[in-house]
């Protein structure tokens, strides 16, 4: 018997998303507290599920039908970990989301709850078609949120995202159709055990379709042209959600496809090359940006590319690094987007050159610095371990050319972030309005997490020791 059902992580946000319009009829003021309360409840459940999943993988059978017949949720230690990260980031971002003033608020809160629900579902599910359904939920919620500002930039970003996202979903569906038509099953582990029965050509086409489809959500080159416009045009809290929730769910789904379903254990040159290209183009274009949110968006592409590289190298160490990087990027990039939201609000511009001295207020400056240093991979912060392990993973296998490119891209990253730090901490700027509690509390929370697990990463490494089973096709 299962003590905590992982399905609650999906059912609770869904229930409250349906309830919000009714609550909104009576009072619009309580909505934000309801949403934050719901996500807080979800985070607690995620913690319980994660604790249980550490002992043994949880299978939550839905509808009472055994797996190949019905749908099952499959939560291993890593899935529980990613779900916990997503819910935790969602909780902290929802504190910042209380700031939101633009109508229609009911719809904003509904969409953000459903984005959380979709991301949770993508991480927890053990069924390939169910994964597609949750991919749809996540991406359609994202389209709505991306256009929420209802200005030209928002529409441009959302439209690009709609087009690329729909093509991606179509490819996922084709991949699933090919697999089902040959194996007559949709359960991930069932597929994995019987993969050899598939026609080799169909298998390759199916894998490529799934890889391309989830690559859109995971911001892989060259399917990531939606990223800068969408992140730039979306409300600030939504950009943070994209970076820390939907992108993480997408890359975890990709990892599932690679390791759980197709059980690749060795070096995947295809994935590594895509990863390197993603890192390289992301970082170099980020260097050329003048607007803060666009720079962060391109930097986000670069970071996702690093995760992809780690997955592609495929040794235990590199994949551990990739998972660590997912954690650190979710925290640090959400922090930076929230900080960017405040900075754009305070300076009334997106241009970095006009943000002189914005970081001199310690409530903004300290978290900002911590976030940037963590993204750059400085030792006492969590960003260090992810990058280091990916590098070491590549190094021990002797992929020197890839390592060199990776390091070069990291140097570029240092250059543009350092440029921004210089502007932000320069003296002689204007006086800016001091941040509200809803801004600095999430910033400080993220910063505290980054520092604590940066100084004391042992618990994370204990979780990541389960990567070995994950790589050999286990949950």
């Amino acid at each position, binding site marked *: 018997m299962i003590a905590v059902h992982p399905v*609650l992580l999906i059912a609770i946000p869904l229930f409250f998303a*349906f*309830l919000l319009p009714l609550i909104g009829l009576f009072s619009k003021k309580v909505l934000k507290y309801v949403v934050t309360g719901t996500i807080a409840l979800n985070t607690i459940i995620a913690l319980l599920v994660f604790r249980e999943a550490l002992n043994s993988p949880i299978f939550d059978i839905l*509808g*009472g039908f055994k797996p190949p017949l019905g749908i099952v949720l499959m939560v291993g230690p890593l899935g529980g970990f990613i779900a916990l990260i997503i819910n935790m980031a969602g909780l902290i971002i929802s504190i910042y989301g209380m700031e939101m003033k633009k109508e*229609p608020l009911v719809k904003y809160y509904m969409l953000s709850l459903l984005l959380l629900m979709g991301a949770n579902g993508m991480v927890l599910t053990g069924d390939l078609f169910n994964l597609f359904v949750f991919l749809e939920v996540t991406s359609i919620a994202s389209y709505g949120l991306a256009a929420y500002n209802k200005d030209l930039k928002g529409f441009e970003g959302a439209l690009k995202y709609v087009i690329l996202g729909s093509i991606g979903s179509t490819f996922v569906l084709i991949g699933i159709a090919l697999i089902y038509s040959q194996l007559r099953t949709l359960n991930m582990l069932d597929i994995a055990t019987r993969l050899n029965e598939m026609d080799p050509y169909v298998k390759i086409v199916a894998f490529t379709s799934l890889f391309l489809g989830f690559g859109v959500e995971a911001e892989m080159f060259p399917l990531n042209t939606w990223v800068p416009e969408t992140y730039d045009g979306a409300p600030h809290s939504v950009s943070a959600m994209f970076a820390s929730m939907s992108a993480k769910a997408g890359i975890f789904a990709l990892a599932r496809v690679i390791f759980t379903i197709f059980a690749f254990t060795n070096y995947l040159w295809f994935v590594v090359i895509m990863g390197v290209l993603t890192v390289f183009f992301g970082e170099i274009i980020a260097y050329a940006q003048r607007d803060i949110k666009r720079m962060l968006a391109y930097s986000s592409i670069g970071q996702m590319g690093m995760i992809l590289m780690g997955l592609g190298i495929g040794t235990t160490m590199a994949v551990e690094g990739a998972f660590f990087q997912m954690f650190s990027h979710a925290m640090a990039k959400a922090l930076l987007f929230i900080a960017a939201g405040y900075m754009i609000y305070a300076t009334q511009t997106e241009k970095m050159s006009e943000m002189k001295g914005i970081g001199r207020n310690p409530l903004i400056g300290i978290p900002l610095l911590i976030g940037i240093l963590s993204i750059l991979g400085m030792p006492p912060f969590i960003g260090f371990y992810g990058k280091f392990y990916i590098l070491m993973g590549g190094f021990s296998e002797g992929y020197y050319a890839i390592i060199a490119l990776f390091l070069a891209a990291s140097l570029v990253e240092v250059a543009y972030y350092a440029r921004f730090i210089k502007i932000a901490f320069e003296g002689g700027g204007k006086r800016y309005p001091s941040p509200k509690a809803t801004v600095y509390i999430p910033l400080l929370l993220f910063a505290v997490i980054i520092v604590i697990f940066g100084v004391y990463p042992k618990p994370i490494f204990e979780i990541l020791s389960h990567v070995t089973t994950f790589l050999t096709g286990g949950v």
Partner: protein
Amino acid sequence: MKRILGGVIAVLIFIVLALAFVHIPFGNIDLAEYHYYNPVDNEHTQDSVPQHYLDEGKKETGSTNIVTAVVVDYRGFDTLGEVTVLFLASTGVGSIMYIFEKEKRRKVRRANAVVETASKLLFGFIILFGAYIFVHGHLTPGGGFPGGAVIASSFLLLYLAYPRFHAEHKNLNIAESLAGLTFVGVGILGLFLAGYFLYNFLPFGLPTYLFSAGVIPVIYVAVGVKVGSELTGIVDAMMGVRE
């Protein structure tokens, strides 16, 4: 140049996929080689999933319509997700099409008397037909999604016949919320009663009768109401009527 490149890529993708689809059988194939793996109990079975649905579906779900058995019972969780997708689409359209002030009413021409009278007469019958489709979802072809679409089409008819008509958005929202809550509520109830989310906890009754198949009709009525009100809401939002 761009067009040529696009064309070449499209042709390439077509060839690659066509070569893959050549290998795919349609319909059920020889089952001798199948052994299914159940990861929860870690056991292998000789059963085939599609054949199992056909052979045992009626017994295990009580639904006469096997498609419904698969959609609402075996893979009910997917349907919950699909309902959510539609809900999201309607919410997203509502949020993007949101208008702050009442727009000046456009000058509209009335439809002629034949259209107005006929649509008034047909409105009730179309709704009745839509309700019939989703109420009998477990017995006859159809179900919540087509039934809801039929209901929405009756409202669409009114929009076409009476240019000034608009459905009360508040009521639509209440209807879709209550229907969604019913679906999730049934799921959670199953979790508490039997330990499985979306478990079919009501008695199955006799197949082919209206009151049979346990929770399937309940879910399908909820889906029908939800789809109907959501599609109507989308039409309404597209017309630019303020909430």
